[in-house]
């Protein structure tokens, strides 16, 4: 049988009826609405004025304003109208916007440093977890390791309780080690939580790659490390991408440890966003603006890696 014939038979599944297709399509649309609507609402709220944001019944059509974003990025002080009248005319559009509310800008808010913290801690811990996870998974997959099963179970067992259950011991430990409120501390913590997931996920993917590939490369002149880098990794890309997305989502969204262990220097976005509510009344548009910004990197990361997620790992290379 030729390769083409094999392929055609592999896909000879029963064709779905139009009704089944319509039903399936309906379900997908319903699911999309349920998941996307809240996101759209947040994106919209970020462009509302404070009164529109809490209007009842909720406003779907409203006059868009950038107040939410301005409030998010600045710290403002309330002044008397007399004081504001005496000031020189506003230099920028956002000065003008703020003065309409009887306020002046006192300086930038902390959102940018917090966002940068989130980026460094999120991507840093993801990189470390995937890096360590790949090496460990490769070793578990390819070498005879004494007590391999027990070790794997031990690694998995770290995920058998919610990480927050060990929050207090970790807090005490971090205080001793001076790791509280440091980016390094948060990166290490998230790496530790993610690495077990990474090892398990990646082991599954690497197990799927026939070991003949590296062995062929080993015989042909590569060292073990070169074979891993140039032969195994290109084929594990799918698994690595999926694992990286899972790890990033966890460390990006993590709230409990971030609240407990960071307060200033290393604070990430999740504990920072609730702070915005407190600064100057219930500023929902600013919160929504922060949330929108917060969601963007993870959406971008997922979209960028999407093509790897969809590609088959070893299709056609090995005859099954």
């Amino acid at each position, binding site marked *: 049988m030729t390769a083409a014939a094999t392929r055609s038979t592999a896909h000879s599944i029963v064709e779905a009826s139009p009704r089944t297709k319509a039903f399936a399509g309906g379900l997908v649309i319903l699911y999309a609405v349920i998941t996307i609507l809240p996101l759209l609402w947040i994106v919209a709220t970020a462009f509302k004025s404070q009164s529109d944001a809490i209007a009842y019944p909720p406003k779907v059509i409203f006059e868009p304003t950038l107040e939410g974003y301005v409030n998010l990025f600045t710290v403002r002080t309330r002044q008397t109208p007399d004081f504001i009248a005496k000031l020189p005319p506003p230099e920028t559009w956002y000065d003008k916007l703020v003065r309409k509310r009887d306020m002046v800008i006192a300086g930038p808010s902390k959102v940018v440093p917090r966002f940068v913290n989130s980026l460094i801690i999120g991507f840093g811990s993801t990189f470390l977890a995937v890096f360590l996870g790949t090496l460990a998974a490769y070793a578990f997959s390819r070498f005879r390791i004494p007590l391999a099963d027990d070790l794997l179970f031990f690694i998995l067992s770290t995920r058998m309780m919610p990480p927050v259950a060990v929050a207090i011991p970790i807090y005490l430990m971090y205080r001793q080690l001076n790791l509280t409120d440091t980016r390094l501390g948060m990166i290490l913590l998230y790496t530790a939580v993610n690495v077990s997931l990474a090892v398990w996920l990646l082991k599954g993917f690497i197990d799927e790659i026939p070991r003949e590939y590296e062995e062929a490369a080993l*015989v042909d002149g590569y060292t073990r490390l070169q074979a891993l880098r140039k032969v195994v990794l290109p084929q594990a890309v799918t698994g690595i991408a999926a694992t990286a997305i899972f790890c990033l989502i966890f460390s990006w969204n993590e709230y409990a440890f971030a609240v407990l262990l960071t307060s200033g220097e290393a604070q990430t976005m999740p504990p920072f966003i609730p702070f915005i509510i407190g600064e100057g009344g219930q500023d929902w548009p600013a919160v929504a603006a922060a949330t929108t910004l917060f969601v963007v990197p993870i959406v971008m990361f997922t979209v960028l890696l999407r093509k790897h997620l969809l590609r088959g790992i070893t299709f056609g290379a090995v005859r099954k």
Partner: protein
Amino acid sequence: MAQIRIENLRKSFDQFTAVEGSTFTIDDGTFFAMLGPSGCGKTTTLRMIAGLELPTEGKILLDGEDVTFHRAAARDIAFVFQLFALYPHMNVGENIGFPLKCQGMARREIRERVQETARMLRIEHLLSSKTSKLSGGDRQRVALGRAMVRRPKAFLMDEPLGALDAEFRHLMCGELRDLHDRIKATTVYVTHDQLEAMSMADQIAVMNKGRVEQIGTPQEVYDRPASMFVADFIGSPPMNFLRFEGGLRSGDRAVSFHDTRLAVPEIREDRASAPLALGVRPEHIRFADAGAVRGEVFGAEYLGTTQIVTVDTAYGRVAARLPSSASVRIGETIGLEFNAERLALFDIGSGRAIRTESVEGVRHG
């Protein structure tokens, strides 16, 4: 090209011994097949020669040089895998050129060598194709190309035709042998398929449970099996074994088989009475009314030029290969006559062949 010598090679995994102290030499330019059922240690032996597995004990010498603990890359040998192991992220040309790239050869030279190799395998037109688009046979050719391109000291092949369809396998058998005759490379070929081994190899090592049972030319292992295992494993249908009890005297030309005397090749060893087996290939059986062993025809399998007739005798079921023109009725009682010169005797306890005129000097592993 090279001579490969294996000395007392042993490999165990935890409790399990995969290969037990085998010693043999594969001469330069030989097509050497390692044949045996799965789990017999043939692949492990091959992987140790390749350096993909380290032996627990013993030595591997390539052209006299001890390479037992050398890295795979340092041995200058090529390995062809059953699943081809073509890199899916490279096209055919890149796959074939990969070993040269590993060695850091200049790009122009790589291109020339790849072209030359592809011409030899008649796959020049495929060089820029994706490996996923190829048929099984072409994939195998690419895998061979990747092995040949480096001009290694030896080729190691692990069931390279195992993943092919029967007809393709036959075709590739011919191509492989032809290729070997042209480049005269020492080749170690692992297979569980006796037809592949018999049709291609100069020498066959029959392995069982980690041991080499016999090494010899295809004719030797077929005609003069060193053990019951070899006799049973090689040949289709396998050799018939008729059990009996008796003693043997050197120089005798007949044995007491139950109530009769059966002519056998001259016996070359003395033996006290023990359970023995008379081995007879199906093609060395004739139907004759005067035959010493009688039985009832159980069934017949038509194969074109010959037919395999199974006969139930008092000593077990026996398969005979007869011309397809012979008329056979199921249920009929017939006599069986054996070709005395081709009979073999085995000691059931050890499974070893009894030394006779015809089975003398066969090489054990």
